[in-house]
């Protein structure tokens, strides 16, 4: 009995000491005292290798010490031990974003007028909504490396987003000439056909895109939609169901799913899917960020 009580007391002390060590470490990170934080967190991780919070603190300390690779290694281990840890995912997303920018900056430094540098600049301009600037840079990239399929696809996507479907189709066709089973070019062509021509013409392109990348949720949804709209709900349904399983919060997908169930006479499932559409619509209407994202 006494041994049990002592063990419990010891466990309480050990847990309190561990929590206090981590708190000290967190305070050091917040204060910007990264070297001492790294020392503390490293010692803690050595004693408690399964501690995910300690690994995240160690990663943050490494970030402060400009050791991005070390930080990423700790975060990778954290996510391996706890795949759904939001804190770890948050820092992975942030850190990998910064590391990516550093690599791109190094490309611009070592090869300032290269195709890759122009491509990077084009992508940055596109992300900031400067379509004409992005087009110029993509063309400059293509001038330096005329066979780059990725740049042709990027130009196709750029035109497609501006609703210039004929120009977009021209770029995707050039990409497909060089790489006939290129996923991006096939999907882009299908997406243009769907709007500028018909679902019937889009369907074979989406099917080829899905064959090129069987894991693509976008291709599954697009193929499912084209099948549904061309009167084949039977074959559309499994694709739409698979896509909806991966992302249950996509309103359009739920709507398509509802239509497929309805066309197949599965009224109860159709009712559930349409109810989900209403819930998602209400959520989006109460959320300015989500509404604009749609």
């Amino acid at each position, binding site marked *: 009995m006494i041994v049990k009580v002592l063990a419990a007391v010891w466990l309480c002390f050990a847990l309190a000491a561990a929590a206090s060590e981590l708190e000290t470490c967190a305070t050091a990170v*917040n204060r910007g005292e990264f070297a001492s934080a790294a020392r503390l967190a490293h010692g803690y991780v050595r004693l408690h290798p399964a501690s995910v919070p300690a690994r995240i603190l160690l990663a943050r300390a490494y970030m402060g010490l400009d050791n991005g690779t070390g930080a990423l290694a700790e975060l990778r281990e954290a996510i391996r031990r706890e795949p759904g840890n939001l804190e770890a995912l948050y820092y992975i997303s942030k850190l990998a974003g910064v590391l990516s920018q550093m690599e791109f900056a190094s490309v611009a430094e070592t090869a300032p007028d290269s195709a890759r540098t122009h491509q990077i600049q084009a992508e940055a301009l596109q992300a900031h909504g400067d379509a004409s600037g992005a087009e110029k840079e993509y063309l400059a990239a293509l001038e330096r490396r005329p066979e780059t399929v990725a740049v042709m696809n990027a130009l196709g996507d750029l035109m497609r987003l501006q609703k210039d479907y004929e120009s977009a189709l021209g770029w995707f066709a050039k990409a497909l000439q060089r790489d006939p089973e290129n996923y991006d070019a096939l999907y882009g062509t299908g997406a243009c056909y769907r709007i500028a021509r018909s679902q019937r013409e889009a369907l074979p392109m989406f099917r080829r895109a899905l064959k090129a990348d069987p894991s693509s949720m976008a291709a599954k949804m697009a193929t499912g939609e084209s099948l549904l709209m061309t009167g084949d709900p039977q074959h559309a349904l499994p694709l739409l169901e698979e896509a909806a399983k991966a992302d249950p919060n996509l309103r359009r997908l739920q709507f398509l799913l509802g239509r497929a169930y309805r066309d197949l006479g599965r009224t109860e499932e159709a009712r559930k899917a349409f109810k989900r559409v209403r819930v998602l619509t209400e959520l989006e209407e109460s959320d300015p*960020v989500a509404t604009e994202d749609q």
Partner: protein
Amino acid sequence: MIGLLLVSIALGFAPTAPATLQAAIAAEKAGQTQSAVKQLREILRASPAPEIAGQARLELVRIHQRRGEWWESAEQLRELRKLAPQDSEYAYQLGVAYQNLSKWAFERMRAIAPESGRTQQMLGEQYSIGGAADKAIAAYGKAIAADPQLAGSHLALSVLYLRAGKRDEAKSEIDKELGIAPESAVAKQVRQAIVGGTP
């Protein structure tokens, strides 16, 4: 090629690194990706000559990129960068791998807990980087509503307001941040920038 390799092993000859590399490439072409990855990793474990190591790593990068395995892809590209520090193509590919890793982590956050404070914070950061200040402010607002004690949201709002020349709002936000994280060196610096010499 795989047949030849198996025969050589059966006869007691250890396959050379170039032969294993060719066998791995053939396996990959034949759709035996797991076997290819295994052979390529075996080559690398044996510390081969730099050109063989480089080729093996490049093959691994191709496989991992195709399968969307960004951790593994980045791992190989980092080694390739060490082998050829001046090769800007490796730097570009590593940048792309990191970019995809970042997207992957964010998508996981959105799938696991779309309304959580951290996910909304991340969304706010994305909007902020893209120059969409209004959307960023809305996302940070949602982050605060979801988790009022999570550090970082008031700090980010303060910086956004400061950039927009709204000093009073910036000060109010940074004071809230310091209420949550009194030790934050960054928050103290931002407050200093807002109020100047005034404590």
